[in-house]
């Protein structure tokens, strides 16, 4: 919202806006954000969101650690990140102001619910003086309203208790913001009716609050510097769109992949933040033949998935970093027995319990190396919430075609972040049906396809193929236990060659922007896609010769990657960790790639990427 400025009369047209809704966990900010997003998506803007939950549990009202935030970035051009800094901050209480004000752009707008600025709340937020009075807000344009009171007035006729009535204040606020940015309330009205179908009076009160907030904007006189705006449609590719979070699209991608493979999914999972919602989503989709099993622990979850794959289904397990750390031994079993398996790792801040609700990319080396023995497997990463769908399909494809575990890396920001997604059609995906051995002649369980090196999949229940497998080394020619030295060498090499061979079956690495011959290449993976993409675009606009490659396949790496990297003099590798992909690239290709590392539980800001490109070019 570079062009953001006050206006009083007609709506001012803006190219892009970043709004952050912030309040107490109990204030319903996630809902507010989601509804604003929904409506914005329907308006045809491009958008990206970033929900930021409080860590772990509902904290006592009013405390800073109980603040919940939801940021949305929407624009009339295509955008890829939730925005570096908000143009508008909605602060429902002092704690929300305290935590978020520092991020607001200079000159940005703050919408404040003064009704929550009681001395008790100020104290809980750690304010010694009232920020409304002491000049804290001087650099900003403020809209101060007693939203609590306005809401109570708006829903008075419904005779709810005060507590219930106050719950509607997020809808009042939403109404006001929808007025301010010219959004349609209809989808929210519809959604409220559905959600409170069994309690129509609650639905009606919320709708009344929503409308009252909107009406307030229409009628009340705004202080100077506060106006109303419009953000025209973005020029999106034609098609049908929806809004989607990464965990939803991962879930759906798994189902789609399984259908393309002709398999049923057995999901073994143990709840863990931020992966749990994949389990929840799939548990609600049993009609797709997905069996969801909440196991007793992380190890049981993956082991049940392996058992399911052994029995001829597609075993899937979903978790986050600490869960992956526990699954290492079982992953090794899946590698040794060469069974298909998809492990989804929704990465979060580490080490150990770390920052469970924050995002990070620090499981990459664990994914590639974190097991005993020479234990290669395939690793795939998703780069945007919507891209999780295709990445999940790709993970399933590789698992089934190569009889191997595949780790799909997403992260907290993808999992909970949302973006408009052009809905694909299943007809556009080529099926990759799994085949099961039935021929008994010449059978042994480690017979391999000479092209893919995948072993045969012989399902229990198939007459004549009775066999035993396990974690001990197996003879190349018989599949029986073998302690033969040369055989072990050969099998280790074959397992490695099978994974390496996947490189022939994945796209060559392309440049997302720029071209060979540019001065510098920025190489990313995973959720940094949006920030890097925009940072590179901005730098290119300034005339910098910078290219961008985003790597989807991390093990094996694309065949042409070495050549591509070597064609640049400088290589910058931004990662939300202390340097992991950069290690893989350096060791694999002996290129002097340098890292840009942010380990703060937050995505890169576009400006950080831009600045790093500039300083790296100078160095």
């Amino acid at each position, binding site marked *: 919202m570079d062009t953001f400025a006050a206006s009083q009369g007609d709506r001012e047209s803006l190219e892009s806006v970043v709004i952050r809704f912030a309040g107490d966990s109990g204030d319903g900010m996630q809902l507010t954000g989601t509804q604003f997003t929904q409506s914005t998506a329907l308006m045809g803007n491009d958008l990206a969101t970033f929900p930021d939950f409080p860590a772990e549990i509902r904290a006592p009202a009013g405390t800073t650690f109980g603040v919940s935030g939801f940021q949305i970035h929407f624009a009339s051009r295509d955008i890829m990140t939730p925005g570096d800094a908000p143009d508008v901050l909605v602060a429902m209480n002092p704690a929300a102001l305290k935590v978020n004000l520092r991020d607001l752009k200079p000159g940005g707008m703050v919408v404040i619910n003064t009704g929550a600025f009681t001395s008790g709340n100020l104290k809980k937020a750690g304010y010694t003086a009232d920020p409304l009075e002491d000049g804290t807000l001087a650099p900003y344009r403020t809209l101060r309203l007693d939203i609590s009171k306005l809401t109570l007035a708006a829903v008075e006729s419904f005779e709810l208790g005060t507590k219930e009535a106050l719950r509607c204040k997020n809808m009042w606020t939403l109404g006001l913001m929808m007025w301010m940015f010219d959004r349609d309330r209809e989808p929210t009205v519809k959604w409220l009716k559905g959600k409170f179908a069994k309690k129509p009076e609650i639905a009606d009160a919320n709708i009344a609050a929503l409308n009252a907030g909107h009406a307030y904007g229409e009628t009340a006189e705004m202080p100077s510097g506060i106006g109303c705006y419009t953000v025209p449609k973005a020029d999106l590719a034609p098609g049908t769109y*929806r809004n989607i979070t990464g965990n939803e699209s991962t879930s759906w991608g798994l189902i789609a992949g399984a259908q393309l493979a002709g398999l049923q999914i057995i999901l073994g999972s143990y709840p863990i933040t931020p992966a749990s919602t994949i389990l929840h989503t799939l548990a609600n989709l049993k009609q797709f033949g997905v069996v969801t099993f909440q*196991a007793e622990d992380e190890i049981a*979850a993956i082991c049940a998935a392996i058992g399911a794959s052994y029995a001829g289904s597609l075993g899937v397990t979903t978790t986050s970093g600490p869960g992956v750390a526990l699954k290492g031994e079982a992953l090794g079993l899946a590698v040794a*027995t060469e069974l298909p398996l998809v492990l989804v790792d929704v990465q979060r801040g580490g080490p150990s319990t770390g920052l469970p609700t924050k995002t990070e990319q620090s499981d990459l080396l664990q994914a590639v190396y974190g097991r005993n023995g020479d234990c290669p497997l395939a690793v795939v990463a998703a780069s945007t919430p919507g891209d999780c769908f295709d990445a999940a399909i790709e993970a399933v494809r590789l698992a089934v075609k190569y009889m191997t575990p595949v780790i799909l890396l997403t992260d907290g920001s993808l999992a909970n972040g949302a973006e408009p997604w052009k809905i694909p059609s299943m007809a556009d995906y080529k099926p990759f049906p799994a085949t099961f051995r039935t021929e008994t002649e010449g059978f042994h369980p480690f017979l391999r396809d000479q092209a893919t090196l995948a072993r045969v999949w012989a399902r229990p229940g198939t007459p004549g193929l009775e066999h035993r497998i*396990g974690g001990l080394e197996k003879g190349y020619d018989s599949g029986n236990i073998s302690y033969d030295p040369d055989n072990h060498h050969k099998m280790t090499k074959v397992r490695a060659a099978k994974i390496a061979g996947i490189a022939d079956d994945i796209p060559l690495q392309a440049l997302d922007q720029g071209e060979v011959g540019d001065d510098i290449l920025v190489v990313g993976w995973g959720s940094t896609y949006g920030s890097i993409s925009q940072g590179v675009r901005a730098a290119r606009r300034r005339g910098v010769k910078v290219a961008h490659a985003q790597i989807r396949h991390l093990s094996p790496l694309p065949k042409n990657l070495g050549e591509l990297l070597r064609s640049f003099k400088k290589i910058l590798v931004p990662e939300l960790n202390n340097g992991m992909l950069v290690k893989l690239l350096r060791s694999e290709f002996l290129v002097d790639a340098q890292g840009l590392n942010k380990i703060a539980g937050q995505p890169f800001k576009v400006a950080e990427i831009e600045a790093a490109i500039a300083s790296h070019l100078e160095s």
Partner: protein
Amino acid sequence: MTPHDPPKKLTRKDFVSDQEVRWCPGCGDYAIVAAVQKTLPELGVSREKTVFISGIGCSSRFPYYMNTYGFHTIHGRAPALATGVKLANPELDVWVITGDGDGLSIGGNHFLHLLRRNVNLQIILFNNRIYGLTKGQYSPTSLIGKRSPSTPLGSIDYPVTPAAFALGCGARHVSRAIDIDAKNLGEMLKRAHAFQGTGMIEVFQNCPVFNDGAFTHFTERATAADTQLHLEHGKPMIFGKDRSRGLRLRPGSLDVEVVTIGEDGITEADLLVHDETNRAQAFLLAGLEPPSFPVALGVLYSSPAASFEGALLAQNEQATASAGVGDIDKLLRKGHTWTVSGE
């Protein structure tokens, strides 16, 4: 599903694999594998639908010797693997093989949850009160004072009683047999197999190399009659060489005592009658030990209930019945969508 021919009449030999058996000479495991190979044909099961799943340990090599499907997995995790197998294909007849270390040490948690869920399979716990494969360290069932490489001054942990533990876990079918008592063992295999849910069999298995004679105080032929109580549902609890002794409830308390029929006017009618469905009684029986008491063998407890995979897969059917078979294109378009037309 592959087509499934009606099972032809199989014999013991059909269940013997071509792999050389790698247990020590004299190991109790031989008797157990023989009993299983003998019993399977009697159950009328097919080779291709039978799956043996084990963890790691001497006992866990079992699947290699069975000419069926088999999976020798990782230490302690067989119950979890097996649950996945049953979810993928409930028609498979799954046997979990585990040891006292595999099942009760590293695998204790999965053992618990398998039992409480009541997945429809059989689990055989080879209890030799020792870690055989790793060369003789004491195990969770080793008796106090066990000298082993890791406990040169004797172990100090109170042992776990597998049957009591299983009952505490909520197991619904708990039974016991002795490796070399082929008759009772075969019977227990059949009972567990017939049980719709998790049929748990503890087998007292001798490890002649690292824990020889761990059970001889009640398995020796000479004294067996006096040290073994063979339970039969609905029958009074009688034992002893001339079947003259029995268990009686100590009047007014939840406790039992050994009595002699004919002495002090005691008759068979005074004895406790075995009720397989009484969990508290099973728990008490599980704890009886020589020399004061005989060891309770047979089915200590059996109380059927819906199986886990049955109930879970029924939910899938229910979901499909109410929502229709899932259509991905529809799923992707459910909820708010909007269309951008190519202008």
